């Protein structure tokens, strides 16, 4: 079977009470999602994204056409067992607490009690809700509910993950985490079908996208191919002297091309994450979600639990999807038994908390030039706190100290950047 999800002229027409056609929500949709790819379904509000997903899962019946999911019918329990689904909002039972919620869904998958318990703890840890695991989810904020929603979609270690607007209501760290998670899962050979209108999310993680309008696919293809500006070249370097800049300008003029030189701005996302993570390292009290430490190892059986901050810093800054840096440590051979990763995880959880990696290997991602390792040493304070060295250090070395202070004094005020 070549495709994880394939639809044939999938059409959904909503009719009114008299049976007259009213809305063509999805119109002759031919969607093809390959195995082991991250596919983004984009479109403005009301373009039929959610309707299409619901037809894939058998929550709506197509007026015409059919959908094949993992080689079968999306409403078949056998297929469902391999799917993780996060609907457009996290529809949760308000009266259950976070742990009970995951337990309920785990039981629907007939997971043995031991496996269930281990996965629940790992997922709670991953989505950063361990501290509030005994609070009814009805009292959760939207973003916290979203995290639980994501955790329930992952409890069966799905082959196909269908995410409908996964990042709505999430703070930037949560958003970043979901993106990292998606990339990580893709690396593990899972297929992800993502549906969103937040273009930044899709751009960062998707291999291929389709843009829906009026229930029809307008454009589809690889993100790189669709977005690459083949008539332009971008060069990123460490800060260099003005003289060097002049020399480069000269060369470019000789090529008879235009150029625009400036210090690259950090992404607000990166900056925000840095601010919050330093607050977390100081263990400031919060009643909300805590940024997590690792992707649950049952989802990623052949890597050890890693420090998420490590991943955050090393994640691609450029719009183009870059391979995850080689910080992955191979600690165990790929396990064949299903419960093994969980057991491994349990022992990991029972160990005293691992200190955060103090010296993550920071990589400066770029497109055309080779990465240049920073010469700058992290400040002694950051080292003592175990805070990761941040990308800003390399880019704006003179302002380093000042900016860090600002970030701490105005923690949470993301407008600062």
């Amino acid at each position, binding site marked *: 079977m070549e495709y994880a999800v394939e639809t044939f002229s999938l059409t959904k027409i909503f009719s009114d009470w008299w049976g007259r056609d009213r809305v063509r929500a999805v119109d002759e949709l031919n969607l093809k999602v390959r195995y082991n790819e991250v596919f983004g379904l984009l479109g403005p509000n009301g373009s039929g994204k959610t309707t299409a997903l*619901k037809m894939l899962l058998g929550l*709506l019946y197509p007026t015409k056409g059919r959908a094949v999911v993992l080689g079968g019918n999306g409403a078949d329990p056998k297929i469902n067992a391999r799917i993780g689904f996060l*609907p457009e909002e996290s529809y949760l039972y308000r009266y*259950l607490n976070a742990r009970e919620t995951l337990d309920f*869904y785990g039981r*629907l998958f007939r997971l043995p009690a031991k496996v269930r318990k281990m996965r629940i703890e790992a997922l709670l840890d991953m989505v950063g809700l361990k501290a509030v695991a005994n609070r009814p989810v009805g009292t959760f904020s939207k973003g916290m509910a979203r995290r639980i929603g994501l955790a329930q979609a992952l409890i069966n270690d799905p082959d196909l993950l269908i995410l409908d607007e996964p990042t709505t209501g999430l703070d930037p760290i949560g958003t970043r985490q979901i993106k990292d998670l998606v990339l990580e899962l893709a690396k593990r050979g899972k297929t992800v079908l993502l549906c969103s209108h937040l273009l930044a999310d899709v751009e960062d993680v998707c291999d291929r996208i389709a843009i829906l309008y009026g229930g029809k696919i307008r454009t589809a293809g690889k993100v790189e191919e669709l977005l690459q500006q083949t008539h332009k070249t971008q060069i990123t370097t460490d800060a260099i002297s003005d003289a060097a800049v002049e020399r480069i300008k000269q060369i470019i003029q000789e090529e008879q091309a235009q150029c625009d030189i400036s210090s690259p701005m950090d992404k607000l996302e990166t900056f925000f994450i840095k601010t919050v993570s330093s607050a977390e390292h100081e263990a400031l009290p919060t009643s909300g979600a805590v940024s997590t430490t690792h992707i649950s190892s049952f989802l990623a059986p052949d890597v050890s639990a890693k420090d998420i901050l490590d991943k955050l810093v090393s994640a691609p800054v450029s719009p183009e999807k870059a391979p995850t840096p080689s910080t992955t440590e191979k600690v165990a051979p790929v396990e064949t038994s299903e419960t093994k990763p969980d057991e491994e995880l349990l022992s990991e959880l029972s160990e005293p908390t691992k200190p955060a990696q103090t010296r993550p290997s920071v990589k400066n991602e770029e497109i055309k030039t080779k990465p240049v390792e920073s010469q700058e040493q992290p400040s002694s304070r950051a080292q003592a706190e175990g805070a990761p060295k941040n990308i800003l250090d390399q880019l704006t070395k003179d302002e380093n100290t000042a900016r860090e202070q600002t970030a701490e004094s105005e923690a949470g005020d993301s407008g600062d950047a």
Partner: protein
Amino acid sequence: MHSIWAVATNTIKQALRMKIAVVFIILLIVLLPVMGLTTTGDGTLKGRLQTFVSYGLSLTSFLLCLLTIIVSIYSLTSDIDQRQIYTVLTKPIRRYQLLLGKLLGVILLDVALVIGFSAIIYAITIYTPKFSSASEAQRAQADNELFTARIDLTPVEIDITQEVLDTYKKLQASGQLEEMFRGMSRKEIIAQLTNQRKLQRQAAAVGRDLLWEFHNVRPTDPNGSIFIKFKYDVSGISASTVPVYGRWLIGDWQYIRYGIASETGIYDRILPHSIRTFHEIEVSAAVVPKDGHLAVGFLNVPVNKTVVIFSEEPKVLYKADTFTANFIRAALLILLRLIFLSCLGILAAAFLSFPVAVLLSLVIFFTASFSNFFIESFDFLGEDLSNIYRYTIKPVILLMPQFDKFNPTKFLVSGQILSWFLLAKVGIWLVCIKAGLLLLLGLLIFSFREIAKIII
């Protein structure tokens, strides 16, 4: 089964944590003991206990019925309205499993509540006499008439159809028919004549006797007692305090009817009883012959100087089981009712929204609670209409359960046995057939309906 169980426990948690069940539970926990302390009934110990059992059990049954309807409907409609069902049905669970899980949850909740509340009622009923200052006679009365489970036998029915038809023909021939029953249909005249004839058979003029025949009188304890329960009135106006005398003959049918010598003794006594209330005569079970063919005779003694009319035929009662066993069966009868209602709720919720489904279920519940009234009121339709009725509404009403026909409190209050046989019959009809059909229909509808609402 695993996923059905998961849904069931979730449903119970929902009912308890969303405080739907809690309201009902608190209400009952407060009301039942209060009722136990405050009820007085007719002043006797038996009357007090009867009132408590009757009201307590009726209230419990009624509130649990409402609770069952609401919980079973809410559990499913809230999942659909609040869309948790999107995340549930995309898990490896079939739709029928979801419904069965909800049903199981509601039934388990009902089982727990029925056990809990009937235990409270039972305990209060049993312990009230111990703290009561009632006289020995009152205690004996309560023991004989309430703390028991008695079989009651009605007399062998005598076929009077032919007699009535003969009278009808006679009247028709003499032309009196039109005069006596102006503007009535033949059916109505026959009904009226039948009633008249029945009353005639239950009236004894001065010096005349009445005789009732009972088959299969088989008391379990030959040293115990049998009871003759009756109520009579007199013709003409009379104060209810003035006692009316009657000579009662109770014993072997062969002897009393035909004078054939009998091994068993005969009960023969003249007793005064007030009119218009039920009385029970306690007779030693030794008078019952081996073949169980018993005669009960009543002679209107001349001292009365008036016609004595029995409001209904006397009954023979004797103990067949304990109060406790009867009480358990009564609680099971309530449970059967609740199971039916939960199936009904699930069916309604499978295709209706919460308020509509509750309304529909309540209409059916009340119709079932007063089914006798509905059936009788339709029976008196005109000839033309009654034909339409017979083929349209009547089958529907017959399909509905008849809660009033098998009212558990009726059995307990009169100390009448609620046999396992009757319970099984109700179980098969109400739960296996009627509720089963409803559930099946609900499963079918739910399996094929589109779950997601229109969100484009």
